[in-house]
């Protein structure tokens, strides 16, 4: 029995620590946004003045967290960045408690948090391990679900968490705004039906959140119109259509289109697979074509979570959350097969992933009721899910989004040589270099050797270049023959500089 409890405890530790994996594996923060936020935090500490001007300053939660940790600890900035993945790892605690409130057993709730952490649909670690605005607000999303579902609901607590989400990230806040809108709609219908749901509380919370959301985001949107120029009238027309359809389809508990048969969730899952691995987006990515084994993994993960959802979606809070996350996933796909559409799809999957995890918890609950065979099947499924997700995790850890300690050290070592000079490099360099050596990167084309530098990190000569979300093969930018014409100024295991 003690051994069993120890395994459960270790599972929690593993799930909390898993987002730290990219840092533990590579010795540097995951994805380029980390350098922007670290720079903002360091500059704010130095000047004691926070500005709300740029896109990465307008949703300040992550910057505030970094500033706070830097101010109260004497840790190196790169280490302090790991507070963000750590907090993302804590997402599983409110999620576990929420599962328990939905009357899932301890084991099924653990299955849910394991599914979230080892989601085979998309690599969870690329999100939870990243130091970015959205990750900093993720634990607040699951905390919000828990706070709403509590018996002795505290409106002030809900609004405080809501404020954190609004200050955290616009997409996360939009998810919660849609969740509240649908919940308010359901609450009105439940009230009319005479079912138990505190309409007054829901309406107060929905209204409060909407006001905070609108003030902060409309203000930011107006200031950053150029950044959000991709939002068009047709998108504003399509999103409500998807919200209405999704909310309506999950409202009823009986019939062909009901919470017991969540077709739209299945559709969202299918299009997610198509979007991630179907090669339908106008993007170049260094990933091989989908294999039959991957299809098997997706099919199993889909069946597990979607069948579970058919049991899970009795709870009104879950129905509202499901409607919000499904409609956003569908919207992301229907936005268009462009790089922005792909970004939206990835963002929506963070929230859809939470829903799928809850579905998986319910499915495991059903299996565990089947005595020994059910228990063996449940354990096998969980182990299989962890195995299936490992491929995506491995790709992410070695991918173009990951930085290595060696790269960071090399950039700091070359700082005094290249500071203030013109340099060429890809997206990875354009994030790290301005942080480490205060130089700006000119992009990649046209490369000119005259009084300029060309920066190549290890993944550049091994895998190619990252330009925005596009992967470009190395030879498309520069061939070895062309490179020979440049002088090699720095040559280390992780960094090469030509000039």
């Amino acid at each position: 029995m003690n051994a069993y409890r120890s395994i459960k405890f270790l599972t929690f530790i593993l799930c909390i620590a898993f987002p730290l994996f990219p840092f533990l594996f590579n010795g540097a923060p995951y994805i380029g946004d980390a350098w922007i936020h670290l720079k903002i935090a360091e500059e704010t500490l130095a000047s004691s003045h926070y500005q709300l001007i740029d896109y990465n300053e307008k949703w300040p939660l992550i910057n505030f967290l970094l500033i706070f940790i830097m101010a109260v600890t004497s840790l190196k900035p790169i280490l302090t960045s790991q507070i963000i993945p750590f907090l993302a790892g804590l997402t599983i605690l409110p999620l576990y408690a929420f599962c328990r409130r939905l009357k899932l057993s301890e084991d099924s709730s653990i299955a849910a948090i394991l599914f979230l952490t080892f989601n085979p649909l998309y690599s969870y670690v690329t999100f939870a391990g990243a130091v970015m605005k959205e990750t900093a607000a993720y634990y607040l999303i699951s905390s919000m679900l828990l706070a709403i579902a509590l018996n002795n609901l505290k409106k002030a607590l809900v609004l405080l968490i809501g404020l954190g989400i609004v200050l955290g990230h616009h997409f996360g806040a939009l998810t919660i705004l849609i969740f509240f809108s649908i919940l308010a709609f359901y609450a009105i219908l439940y009230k009319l039906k005479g079912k138990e749901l505190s309409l007054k509380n829901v309406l107060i919370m929905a209204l409060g959140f909407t006001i905070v959301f609108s003030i902060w985001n409309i203000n930011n949107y107006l200031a950053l119109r150029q950044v959000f120029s991709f939002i068009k009238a047709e998108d504003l027309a399509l999103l409500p259509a998807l919200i209405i359809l999704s909310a309506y389809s999950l409202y009823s508990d009986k019939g062909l289109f009901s919470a017991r048969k969540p077709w739209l969730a299945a559709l969202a899952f299918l299009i997610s697979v198509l979007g991630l691995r179907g090669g339908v987006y106008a993007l170049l990515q260094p990933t091989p074509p989908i294999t039959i084994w991957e299809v098997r993994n997706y099919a199993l993960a889909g069946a597990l979570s979607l069948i579970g959802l058919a049991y899970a979606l009795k709870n009104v809070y879950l129905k509202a959350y499901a409607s919000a996350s499904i409609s956003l996933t569908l919207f992301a796909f229907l936005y268009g097969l462009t790089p922005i559409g792909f970004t939206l799809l990835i963002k929506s999957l963070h929230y859809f992933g939470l829903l799928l995890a809850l579905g998986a918890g319910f499915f495991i609950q059903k299996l565990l009721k089947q005595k020994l065979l059910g228990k063996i099947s449940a354990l096998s499924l969980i182990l299989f899910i962890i195995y299936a997700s490992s491929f995506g995790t491995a790709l992410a850890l070695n991918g173009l989004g990951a930085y290595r300690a060696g790269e960071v050290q090399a950039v700091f070592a070359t700082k005094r040589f290249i500071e203030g000079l013109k340099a060429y490099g890809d997206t990875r360099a354009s994030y790290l270099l301005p942080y480490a050596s205060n130089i700006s990167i000119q992009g990649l084309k046209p490369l000119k050797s005259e009084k300029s530098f060309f920066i190549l990190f290890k993944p550049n000569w091994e895998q190619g270049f990252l330009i925005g979300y596009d992967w470009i093969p190395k030879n498309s930018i520069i061939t070895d023959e062309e490179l020979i014409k440049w002088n090699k100024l720095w040559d280390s295991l992780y960094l090469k500089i030509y000039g």
Partner: protein
Amino acid sequence: MGFSLLKNLRLTQFMLAAAARGEFKLTQSILATALFVSLLIVLTVSSQAYLSQLPILEEIAIKPALIASKEPLKGIAIKISYIKLNSNFILILASSNLTAFLKLNQANIDGKLPSFGEALLGVKLKPLIENSTFTLKGLNLKVSGFINSPEHLSSAVILADSTFEKLNFSYECFYLKEEGDFQAFAQAPSSLSLIKAVASEILKMVSSIAWVLRSALTLICLMQAYSIAKESRKTLKMLLALNASKINLTLSLTILALLISGIAVALGYAIGLTGLALSSSALSIFYGLPYIKPLASYALIKELIFALTASFLALTILFANEVLKL
């Protein structure tokens, strides 16, 4: 009046609760109405969305507004060359009469015409500029401005004749002229006229189908309203027996009619737009057709208002009729 209003509100709440409990069997009626609304929405939005792509077809089709010839015409001589940059071909154009050339192309430019050592760039070439200069064959050219439109010049570099000569490009010379009395170039039938004629015919057909759908929607609204009114008879009788006045009942039913119509139309809108976007997306992925996102237009709003009005009036009239019969 205040008391009556409060009484009416309570009555409305009672009616809404009865409807939510399923006493009026609204689900089927709402779905039927929503289905017809969605068909109307699909027709309107898809035709509008495809029509919005018409200018592209016009651009693709040979539009004899501009004539280019290798034979000397009474037009502007233009030197054309190209370079390959970042896997893309970039047009290099030069002429002794750039003003006329840009006018012929109906170009919209920011900045001024290039003189010696300067370049006028298509707007898509902006990322290649460094310190307000653009490098061509090793020569740093000062950027004099940008060409915002038309599309075919968005990746072009326009130079003065003298700059072009200094760069020593190999080139071909073409003569450009506005469409006019040039007899050698003619289309029968003209692509542009053909596209416009086909679009006009399609619009006429769409308009006829839309009228059929609107009539069908009105009929469905009446049928569903009749069915709902019939289902509500028992509840209405009970309320009358409880001393509810007929005026109050009618007012409450009017509010109910507005809500039912609102839900049916909103659902129709949702089904229509989602269905259209999903099918267009599927066609785009599996058959390579362009993805046409449903267009938000006044035509869409007009159809929604029509559907809401038809449903609301049908329900209100038949509810009122039911109350009068009691």
